[in-house]
C-alpha cells in the first residue's frame, strides 16, 4: 500500500492527501469543496496537499492505471475498488522511425488514445467523478469540445450517475455519437465552445444546475489534477527519469500546466532526480491565442474566435493561457502553432512512421514538433516526448480526402497488375 498522509482533512469527506484548495493567483486558502474561483480575485483554485512519504515501490505495486498514483491525487485510498473507467498507464511508444524522419536522436510518443474513451480526458474525469461522489452530486456535466463529453458520459454510466453534457452543435460526427451513446443527456448548443462554457457557468449559479457536478467548472480543481498523471507515467515509464523536452497541446492550457506541476512534485518528493526540462505548447493556427501572446512577448492572452479543424483545441479564451506562457518561458520552451494543412500532414506522418493514428490534436503536437526542429528551436540531441491525446477515429473527416484506397479494381490478377503496373 502507498503511504497516505496522516494530515487531517478539512472536511468529513476523504480526499486522501489533499488538505485544501488554494488560489493560484493570490494564495488565499479554502476548504475542500465544490468551488473553483477565488472570491478575492477570481483566480483559479487548485488542490493543496500534504503528501508525506511517497515511495517508488509503492507506486509500482499499484494497479496498471492512474490509481497507482492515488497517494498523489485528491482521492480516497480505496478509489481503485470503486466503479470507474480505470484510465491511464497508456503506452509510451519509442518512435525511432519518426525520430529519424525529423532528425531527432530520441523521441517517444505518449499515446493517450489508448484510454477507455480514446482520449486523455478519461484521466481528468475519473478524478472529477470521485469529487462528485464526495460532494453528493447526482448529475455529472461539462462543457466540451467533444472528447470530454464522451468521457463524462461513459464515466457517469460506469459510476451510476446521471449525466448532461453540453457541446457546440457543429462537432465531428464521431464525437457527437460517442457523447450520446452512453445514455445520458447530450445538448448541442448553437455556438462556439467559449459560448457553451459561458452558458455552463451561468447554469451553475441557477437552481437548474443544483447538485450538478460540472467536471470542468465547479469540480475543476479536482478534475485538472488528473492531468498530472501524464507526467507521473512518462517519468515512471522512463525508469523514474524526466524527459528533457516535451511537446503538449494547448486548448485551455490546463494539461500543460498540470504536467509541469507533476514533474515538479516528483522532483520535490525525491522520486526523480532534478534536471532541467523544457515544455513546449502546441496550438492550431486557427486558434492560437497563447502562441500569439508568446511570440508577442505578452503575459496576457487576447481571446480569439476559433477557426480550425483541430476542434478539440478550439478554445478561444483559454483560462490557463497565462500560466502556459509562464511555464514555457521559465523552462526555456516555447508556444508555437501550425496551420490545418500541416496538421493533416503531421497526422499522416505519425501514422506512416509509427502506426499511430492521431486525432487532429495529435497532428497539432507532431506538426509543432516538426516545425520546432526545422527552425532549430528544439534540441535534436535531447530526449523528447510528444503527446498524442486522442484517437484518429474521432476526427476521420480531417484526413478522409487524402487517406483513400490506392485503387478500386475487379477481383482479378489482371486488374491488379494493370492498376499497379508501374
Amino acid at each position, binding site marked *: 500500500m502507498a503511504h497516505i498522509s496522516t494530515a487531517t482533512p478539512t472536511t468529513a469527506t476523504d480526499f486522501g492527501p489533499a488538505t485544501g484548495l488554494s488560489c493560484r*493567483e493570490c494564495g488565499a486558502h479554502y476548504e475542500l469543496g465544490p*468551488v*473553483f*474561483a477565488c*472570491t*478575492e*480575485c*477570481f*483566480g*483559479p483554485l487548485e488542490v493543496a496537499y500534504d503528501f508525506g512519504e511517497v515511495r517508488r515501490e509503492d507506486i509500482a505495486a499499484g494497479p496498471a492505471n492512474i490509481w497507482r498514483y492515488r497517494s498523489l491525487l485528491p482521492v480516497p485510498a480505496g478509489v481503485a475498488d470503486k466503479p470507474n473507467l480505470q484510465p491511464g498507464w497508456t503506452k509510451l511508444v519509442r518512435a525511432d522511425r519518426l525520430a529519424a524522419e525529423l532528425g531527432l536522436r530520441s523521441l517517444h510518443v505518449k499515446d493517450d488514445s489508448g484510454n477507455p474513451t480514446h482520449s486523455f*480526458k478519461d484521466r*481528468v474525469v475519473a478524478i472529477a467523478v470521485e469529487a462528485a461522489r464526495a460532494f453528493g452530486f447526482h448529475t455529472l456535466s461539462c*462543457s*466540451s*469540445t467533444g*472528447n*470530454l463529453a464522451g468521457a463524462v458520459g461513459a464515466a457517469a454510466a460506469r459510476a451510476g450517475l446521471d449525466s448532461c453534457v453540453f457541446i457546440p452543435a457543429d462537432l465531428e460526427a464521431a464525437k457527437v455519437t460517442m457523447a450520446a451513446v452512453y445514455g445520458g443527456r447530450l445538448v448541442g448548443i448553437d455556438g462556439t*465552445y*467559449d*459560448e457553451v*462554457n*459561458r452558458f*455552463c*457557468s*451561468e447554469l*451553475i*449559479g*441557477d437552481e437548474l444546475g443544483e447538485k450538478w457536478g460540472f467536471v*470542468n*467548472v465547479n469540480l*475543476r480543481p479536482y478534475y*485538472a489534477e488528473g492531468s498530472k498523471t501524464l507526467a507521473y507515467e512518462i517519468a515512471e515509464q522512463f525508469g523514474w527519469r524526466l524527459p528533457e523536452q516535451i511537446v503538449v497541446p494547448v*486548448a*485551455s*492550457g*490546463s*494539461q500543460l500546466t498540470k504536467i509541469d506541476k507533476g514533474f515538479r512534485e516528483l522532483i520535490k518528493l525525491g522520486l526523480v532526480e532534478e534536471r532541467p526540462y523544457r515544455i513546449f505548447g502546441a496550438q492550431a493556427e486557427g486558434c492560437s491565442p497563447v502562441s500569439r501572446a508568446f511570440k508577442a512577448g505578452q503575459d*496576457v492572452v*487576447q*481571446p480569439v*474566435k476559433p477557426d480550425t479543424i483541430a476542434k*478539440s483545441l478550439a*478554445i478561444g*479564451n*483559454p*483560462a*490557463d493561457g*497565462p500560466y502556459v506562457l509562464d511555464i514555457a518561458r521559465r523552462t526555456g520552451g516555447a508556444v508555437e502553432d501550425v496551420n490545418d494543412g500541416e496538421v493533416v500532414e503531421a497526422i499522416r506522418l505519425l501514422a506512416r512512421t509509427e502506426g499511430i493514428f492521431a486525432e487532429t490534436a495529435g497532428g497539432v503536437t507532431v506538426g509543432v514538433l516538426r516545425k520546432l526542429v526545422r527552425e532549430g528551436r528544439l534540441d535534436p540531441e535531447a530526449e523528447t516526448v510528444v503527446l498524442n491525446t486522442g484517437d484518429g477515429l474521432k476526427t476521420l473527416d480531417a484526413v478522409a480526402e487524402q487517406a483513400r484506397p490506392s485503387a478500386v479494381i475487379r477481383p482479378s490478377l489482371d486488374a491488379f497488375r494493370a492498376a499497379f503496373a508501374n
Partner: protein
Amino acid sequence: MSVSVRIPTILRTYTNGVAEVSGEGGTLREVLQKLDADYPGIGGRILDETGKIRRFVNVYVGEEDVRFAEGLDTATPDGVQISVIPAVAGG
C-alpha cells in the same frame, strides 16, 4: 441608460444573494462605477488595482465578450444585459 447586470455566485454576497441587478451608464466603465456605488466593494472584485478587468474575469455586454469590443469603454445600450463570469478551463 438602464441595463441589467448578472452577478456570478461568488459575488452575490455583495447583492444579498440576488443574481441579477439593475444598473446605469452609457459605457461598461460607468455601469461598473454605479454598481460599486450601489454595492460597495464589488467593483474591486471585478477590476484590479490598476482599474483593468481582472485576468480571470470575463465580462459580456449582450453576447459579446468585451475583450473583443472596446473593453471598459464598450457602449452599454439601454436594456442590454451585462454578465460577469469567472473564467473556467475546459476541453
